[in-house]
């Protein structure tokens, strides 16, 4: 590889050597993996951490007094501390393990929502939310008579902030929004939105799925109340996710699910709950996955999240420059203030055809509505194609994408 493949901020070739899957071929071509917003690939450090756990120290956590259980518990809780540091939490007890961000948001909707909201209360969301931050609130709204409001999205992909004073009412108890759009790439002004919400006494739940893997992230600096994100989008395994919440709020919430590990004392007819964070972690958890996410956090920390952001920004800027000249190609979302992904449409070619055609060249992108149907409706398109970058992607790969897209445009033209 030549110098042009190296980003300024990261030693990409060295990083690539840590990801075994990047060596494989697809349809006889070298894999170009550009579907990172859906799920990232895993470095050998994460795979080894999980493998080592199962080979050497597996036992159930928090229960046994034998050596294996103690080692497993130490590794499991150690991973929690790593994540806590990574997101600037006050302490590990504010970090609740979930299966994914979806479960984290559901936990808030089911536990906090059902115990704190009553008929006539309002929850404010945005038009750009992922289904994971829409559907749990729709279920809650139907059950409790809670009203949902939505911040609209402007044509340039930004939230229309002028509407906020109208939408944030004294009845608004929670403002749930994404730190960054998984379709438009928009980076939302989290601090500004949070301050506005807090002025009317609403809590803030941040869908941080497209932020935590890609940039410096500090829950205390942002002054938010809840954050949800998935481990598998940040080099960790599937089945690992996090709900972070302020401990005083989490303490005032009832458990989400009942069972082992989440209790202090059980009688036949009633029980006392365990303390944070275990109150929200019923049953044997995903131990290997938590340990894997801990290793992923170590990996990202060693790169430096400022560097990760800079490298991705450089790559997506280059990609946007290159693809915008393709005839019929239209980029969605803002020109700047964006994350390392770009969604687009290409004339009348259905995104499924774009993705299938690129796949025949070994290029993996996402096509569809990216679990954000209302947002696609807002922009009047049934589906989009999305290329999303991460730490191991190179300028060469962008060039492969661009030449692939030119072929697609030609192939389907009529």
């Amino acid at each position, binding site marked *: 590889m030549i110098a042009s493949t190296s980003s300024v901020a990261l030693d990409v070739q060295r990083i690539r050597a840590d990801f075994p899957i990047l060596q494989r071929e697809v349809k006889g071509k070298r894999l170009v993996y550009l579907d990172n917003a859906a799920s990232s690939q895993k470095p050998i450090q994460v795979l080894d951490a999980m493998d080592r756990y199962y080979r050497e120290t597996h036992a159930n956590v928090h229960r046994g007094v034998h050596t294996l259980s103690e080692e497993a518990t130490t590794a499991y809780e150690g991973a929690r501390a790593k994540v806590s540091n990574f997101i600037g939490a006050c302490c590990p007890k504010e970090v609740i393990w979930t299966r994914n961000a979806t479960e984290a948001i559901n936990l808030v909707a089911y536990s906090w929502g059902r115990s704190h909201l009553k008929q006539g209360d309002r929850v404010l969301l945005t038009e750009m939310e992922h289904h994971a931050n829409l559907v749990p609130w729709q279920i809650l709204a139907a059950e409790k008579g809670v009203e949902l409001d939505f911040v609209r999205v402007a044509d340039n992909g930004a939230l229309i902030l002028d509407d906020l004073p109208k939408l944030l009412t004294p009845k608004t108890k929670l403002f749930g929004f994404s730190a960054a759009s998984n379709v438009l790439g928009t980076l939302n002004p989290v601090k500004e939105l949070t301050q506005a919400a807090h002025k009317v006494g609403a809590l803030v739940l941040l869908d941080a799925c497209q932020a935590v893997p890609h940039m410096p992230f500090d829950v205390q600096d942002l002054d938010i109340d809840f954050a949800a994100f998935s481990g598998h989008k940040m080099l960790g395994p599937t089945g690992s996710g996090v709900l972070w919440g302020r401990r005083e709020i989490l303490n005032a919430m009832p458990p989400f699910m009942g069972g082992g590990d989440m209790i202090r004392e059980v009688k036949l007819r009633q029980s006392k709950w365990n303390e944070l964070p275990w109150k929200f972690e019923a049953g044997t958890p995903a131990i290997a996955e938590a340990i894997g996410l801990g290793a992923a956090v170590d990996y990202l920390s060693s790169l430096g999240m400022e560097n990760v952001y800079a490298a991705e920004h450089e790559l997506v800027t280059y990609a946007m420059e290159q693809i915008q000249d393709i005839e019929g190609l239209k980029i969605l979302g803002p020109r700047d203030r964006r994350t390392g992904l770009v969604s687009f449409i290409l004339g*009348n070619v*259905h*995104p*499924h*055809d774009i993705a*299938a*055609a690129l796949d*025949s*060249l070994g290029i993996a992108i996402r096509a*569809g*509505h990216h679990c954000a*149907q209302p947002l*696609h409706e807002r922009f009047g*398109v*049934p*589906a989009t194609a999305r290329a999303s970058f991460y730490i191991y992607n190179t300028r060469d790969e962008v060039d492969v994408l661009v030449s692939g897209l030119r*072929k*697609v445009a*030609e*192939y*389907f033209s*009529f």
Partner: protein
Amino acid sequence: MDLYAEEILDHYKHPRHFGHLDEPTLVYHDRNPLCGDEITLELKIEDGKVVDIAFTGHGCAISRAAASMMSEEIIGKSLDELKGYDKESILDLLGIEVGPVRIKCALLPLKAMKAAVWGLAEEGEE
């Protein structure tokens, strides 16, 4: 680039029976919200047989080619014969392997045709 068989690409670029009928006997609209594919199928039936057919809508190459090929195929067939069409009939027409994700695209025209023939209510109707 060699992605789809030449015949599929031809049906995609030049779909047969694309448009509307003057007086259709059966009209059925169906969609696959997950991919955004949409089809409106119009059939003219005389003496229990399909005498004309037209479709409109938008979708990927596979769904559009499937609609076009199916339209050519079923003209002249009886309603009873149409009821006998299934997944395999469409895949035979297409003559390609369709993976688990895109099978819904390929089968949307069939779904619309079967619903029209069986007289099913459209989504949202009583």
